[in-house]
């Protein structure tokens, strides 16, 4: 299984906002453990989906040079359950972007209907700043994330 919790970006406005979708499928292993008799999408993985949507937005804003780490879940409220067959939409917007950190606001939709809000804070873990050499596999932005956003960046400065 790959640690990608969004399927596709449908909108990407550099430095401002991004929208991604995730189709929940019963083919996903984790749903069978959560739970076998009544599979539902874990809210923690929706937070991860939003973190990937917003994190790529924040990372792209600085040309993917920073390692963008989720530092705080400032707010997470999801009011409805999501089951196989549903489509989740993550709408993320940059609220603050500074050299060392960023904060984002986010909305979660199920089949087009607003069901929650997830606001996040990201920290830029720079290798010079930390004085620590991070191994390659710890890099946040591997090719798979960049490939995900690439089609939406064609023709822009990003």
């Amino acid at each position: 299984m790959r640690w990608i919790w969004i399927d596709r970006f449908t909108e990407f406005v550099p430095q401002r906002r991004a929208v991604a979708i995730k189709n929940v499928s019963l083919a996903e292993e984790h749903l069978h453990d959560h739970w076998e008799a009544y599979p539902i999408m874990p809210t923690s993985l929706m937070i991860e989906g939003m973190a990937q949507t917003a994190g790529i937005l924040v990372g792209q804003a600085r040309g993917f040079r920073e390692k963008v780490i989720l530092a705080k879940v400032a707010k997470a409220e999801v009011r409805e359950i999501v089951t196989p067959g549903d489509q989740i939409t993550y709408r993320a917007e940059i609220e603050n972007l500074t050299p060392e950190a960023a904060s984002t606001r986010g909305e979660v939709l199920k089949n087009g209907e607003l069901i929650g809000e997830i606001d996040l804070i990201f920290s830029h873990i720079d290798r010079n700043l930390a004085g620590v050499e991070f191994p390659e596999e710890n890099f946040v932005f591997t090719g798979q994330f960049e490939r995900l956003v690439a089609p939406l960046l064609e023709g822009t400065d990003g």
Partner: protein
Amino acid sequence: MPMSEGEVFEKVKETLVEALGVDDDEVTPEAKISADLGAESIDYLDITFRLEKAFAIKIPRGELVPEQLLSDPTYVRSGRLTAEGLEELKKRMTHADLTEFEKDPEVGKIMDLFTVQTIVNYVMGKVAA
């Protein structure tokens, strides 16, 4: 019309309740942001972002929390602020009451300077400017 200290306090309280998930009645003027309200380092950033929004102010890095000062060997020696360090801290943190801290300026105690009142004083200075 400038905001009164009471109005600033109420808004700061609201900010801290949201950022730290504490109860209203825990946010008293004397409450220490880290020791009493449980803030970790990333929370200061969250608080900064929220204060900027709530009061429509800009908080430059190092102004509310002068963290760079602590990594400067001129200002810190053997875990304590030097005389120069203390002077510099006084200049930068006019919003904090340093009376107790001055007696034993141990770096580990510096976060105790951040009380709810410190933040109220800082914001008062910004909204009045």
